């Protein structure tokens, strides 16, 4: 199993780089900064991010797994909430369960995430993910 993935990891390293952008007020939750370059593990272990998981998340400096499930949007939402969100006590401003809170649109490389498989989209090196909350002013 997963020999392809393991090979890929050893060739390309255990981490992938992404550009994450926040807009429409979401940036206020992430250091008041619109654009972030982040490095996240290429693979993850799904049970470790399950809402029922009792263990607290590993520090971001912990060695990344060399195999497992390819990191997807579900994992990215979890990762951003655990490692980048300013106020860890108010995750509901960003997420709801394993997904994004209502009123926020996710764009993957300038494409509506619904066209890319939503939570299941597997992230690639260099992907750009935008989280933008609905703008109502006028």
């Amino acid at each position, binding site marked *: 199993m997963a020999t392809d993935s393991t090979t890929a990891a050893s060739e390309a390293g255990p981490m992938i780089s992404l550009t994450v952008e926040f807009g429409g*007020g979401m940036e206020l939750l992430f250091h008041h900064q619109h654009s972030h370059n982040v490095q996240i593990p290429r693979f993850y272990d799904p049970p470790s991010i399950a809402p029922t998981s009792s263990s607290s998340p590993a520090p971001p400096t912990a060695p990344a797994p060399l195999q497992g499930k390819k990191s997807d949007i579900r994992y990215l939402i979890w990762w951003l909430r655990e490692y980048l969100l300013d106020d860890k006590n108010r995750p509901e401003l960003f997420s709801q369960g394993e997904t994004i809170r209502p009123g926020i649109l996710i764009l993957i490389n300038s494409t509506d995430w619904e066209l890319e498989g939503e939570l299941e989209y597997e992230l690639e090196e260099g992907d750009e993910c*935008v989280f933008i909350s609905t703008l109502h002013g006028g």
Partner: protein
Amino acid sequence: MTSTIPRPRAEVLADLEDTRARLQCLEKELASLPPALDPSPSPQPPAAAAVPQQQHPLSLREYKRYGRQMILPSLGLEGQLKLKRSHILVIGAGGLGCPVLLYLAAAGVGEITVLDHDSVELSNLHRQVLHSEERVGINKAESAKLGLEKLNSDVKINAHALPFTPSLFHSATTPSSILEPSFSLILDCTDNPATRHFLNAYAVAYGIPLVSGGAVRTEGTVGVFGLPLPSPPSTSSGSAPVDSESSTPPTHGPCYACIFPPSAPSPTPPSTELSPAERLLQEDLRAEKLALQGTGACSDEGVLGILCGQVGVQMGAEAMRVLLGVAKPTLHLLSPMSPSPLRTIKVRAQKPSCPACGTFPSLGDPSTLSTPSSRWATFLCHPEGRWEGWEDPLCEIPGVGSSSLKREGERRVRVGELAASLGSGARILDVRSKAEFGICHLDGSINVPFSSLLRDPSSALDLVSPSHSSSVPSTDSSPIYLVCRRGNDSLLAARALSRHLSTQPQAPQVELVDVMGGLTAWSQDVDATFPLY
């Protein structure tokens, strides 16, 4: 004899409006007359007399006025005529409505109906460029009409001082153009989610394309929704069963609600099974969450004037594309202050399950189909005209400052009391944003933005401890006065700090005082030279 007593403002305004209307009539009359230097009837020049009179679809003035854009192959005379034959509905004559109206009227859209219930304010003019200082106080739709008629008197403008709400459809005075719409296009230039979703439902029910824009702070969106799609060229089998929706391609592009689904109803109030203390805590946490999410209104969050121009002009461009028949479903993100100011998004297809534009079995009777127009018809028949999910945006946004009841052991004072305690060691904690604090603040006050205070209450308290604010002769026991712009966040901040202190029995206990009405009240009641913004 004229009275020396000044007339009431409303009377003068009414008079002014009458005079302007009269002025317009005169100008129109003059414009319809032949030019003064052209002696008429005059003998025709000999050459012209021999040429038979041609029929032209535009007036000579229109050829001249629109010539520069008619030269463009993408427009041509045919395109100009399409614009002239169009009747568009613009909801909102504010930050987005102004540029939309200016450019579409200038471009020669034949007829424009504009609705806005609001009046022009001075704080609008940095972005609502169709209004002017002299029209502060008059209705925005009326003001827009005055401005547009000066710009292009060949365009017919219908202005209505009305809000676009469900009750509009249950009122005998509503114009029939709204009740029986035949608009080529609707432009959503509104400023709140309830009106956006209601307007989208209206557009969907009547099959009218919608160009919607939103702008707040330094970012905006522009989308083209409910656009009829060309039917696929193949298979002419018109006998497709109705229930195989997923297999038939959608006839329309996504609607506003397909892409921005309406939020779930606000969470139910805390259950009565909780203890009073727990209930108050839940209430506070809910209010804090709302305050942190922001109201989304330009008056609270701020808005860049240029942004409204950019978003409005992009809406105008999409409107032209719709009217010329070359539009595609799309969504643009605009952020003029960022290095990449324009981004275009590939959007999803129409969602068959969309509550606004979807067609699905009725909830009550699954043997019948619920369609956009059947849902709209049900709404029209409803005696009170209730629309699901509608919350009146004209009602005050649920804040805590004015409405919240005083709680046991809580101290809330008016601004006069804060004024009286200045100099006697009062410490002032201002919980507005850093930018707002930078605009104006009370001497000696210390800034800890609301979100930082909630995240780290103990650092906030350290900052106002006497060792930090040496200029004020305060002590650890001096009360801390909390202020903000209007008095909502300061109350929540006072409650959050007192909650924090209750978990730290060994920390020095201080009295926390919320200043009701905030700096707005300070300017109104204590110091009229303190800026309101």
